[in-house]
């Protein structure tokens, strides 16, 4: 009953099917599941719908799946770091659905929490609101404000990167590498986590587990390159 797999490709076995929807954790290149993305690329699965805040950079992270044209559609909030993405999108080869970052995070949380829809002020009066249901709610001043309906998002497969994990699937994340991963873990039919380190069950403090094991079906220890997009330093 251990959830531990030995390699990233073992951990992805049977999940990389054409046409599946994949959630992939990370903000920029921070906290992305590098090895699971590479395994997804190696599988050759195509027509993927990928839900991820960003699209990697050219040739790295999700950029790898764009190069091989395995992606049919992206749902993201910001894709500015990827020229190949821009080229495919402007050339009509790639579908793109922009979501405001907070709306994207909340849609994923909602999908995992059994909430099919929620209302938000974000995007009211913008392109994002077009075609969406509008609804008024009273605010605390008794005035009425207008909100739009956003729906929950789920995935066939979620791939995330954590700091430490155990055989029960309990995970902790480090610093800002946490970002979208905890919500995505809840929204995948199968969630696969790669971790810097697999630790014995019982060594993570139960008070401080970020993702309880119930949300994680497979786990693999793997080494990440952890590229930095904007190395910014001050004088020491």
């Amino acid at each position, binding site marked *: 009953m251990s959830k531990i797999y030995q390699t990233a490709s073992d951990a992805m076995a049977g999940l990389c099917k054409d046409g599946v929807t994949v959630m992939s954790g990370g*903000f920029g290149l921070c906290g992305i599941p590098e090895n699971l993305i590479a395994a997804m690329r190696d599988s050759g699965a195509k027509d993927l719908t990928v839900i991820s805040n960003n699209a990697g950079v050219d040739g790295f992270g999700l950029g790898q799946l764009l190069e091989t044209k395995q992606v049919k559609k992206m749902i993201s909030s910001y894709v500015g770091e990827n020229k190949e993405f821009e080229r495919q999108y402007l050339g009509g080869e790639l579908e793109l659905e922009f979501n405001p970052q907070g709306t994207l995070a909340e849609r994923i949380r909602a999908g995992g929490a059994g909430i099919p829809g929620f209302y938000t002020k974000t*995007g009211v009066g913008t392109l994002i609101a077009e075609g969406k249901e509008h609804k008024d709610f009273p605010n605390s001043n008794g005035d009425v404000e207008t909100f739009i309906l956003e729906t929950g998002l789920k995935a066939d497969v979620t791939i995330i990167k954590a700091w430490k994990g155990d055989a029960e699937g309990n995970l902790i994340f480090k610093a*800002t590498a946490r970002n979208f991963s905890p919500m995505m873990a809840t929204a995948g039919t199968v969630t696969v986590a790669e971790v810097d380190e697999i630790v014995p069950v019982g060594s993570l403090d139960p008070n401080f587990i970020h993702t309880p094991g119930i949300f994680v079906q497979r786990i693999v220890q793997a080494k990440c390159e952890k590229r930095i997009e904007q190395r910014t330093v001050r004088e*020491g």
Partner: protein
Amino acid sequence: MALDKAGWTRDQMAARAAQELEDGFYVNLGIGIPTLVANHIPDGINVTLQSENGMLGMGPFPTEDEVDADLINAGKQTITTLPKSSFFDSATSFAMIRGGHIDLSILGAMEVSENGDIANWMIPGKMVKGMGGAMDLVAGVKRCIALFDHTNKRGESKFIKACTLPLTGQNCIHMVVTDLGVFDRKSGQARFRLRELAPGIDLEEVRSKTEADVIWS
């Protein structure tokens, strides 16, 4: 720096915006000029910076030895922690933003209209980058200051009657700080009013470069 040119430099604009900070404020700074505001926090004012990728209490850039790939800000720059820092997931981060817990957002703009609309995320057919967290910020944060050059490269006003670019948010900007001056308004339907001119800038110059209908006196 550029003191020979009339008006504020980018750094001076940031310094002026920083005067709006109050003790105890939680603040989100956008990418670009707004990031510079962090260098001008007035003495005696304790401000906590939020980074929407999941951090409160953003510290300065790291030394070479401190660089940590797992610790970046929303501009993807390496940063550091402070003693008061906390990390959280993106849903919690935007619960702070959408839920009105952030006191002030300072962000860049391509256009701001006289009714407080802002456009800063898209140029149709040209730029495909995405809005990131900007739409959530302008919709959720209690007060939003737009910080931008008063005119574009062709000398055309960016503070205008109605935005021509796709909006980031409607009726959400409470203060405008440009290289030429400062404008503010009460929330809701109020008009912007000129509050301050940058050094070396006279009223005639600002009026001529402002398409928006603002209160000049």
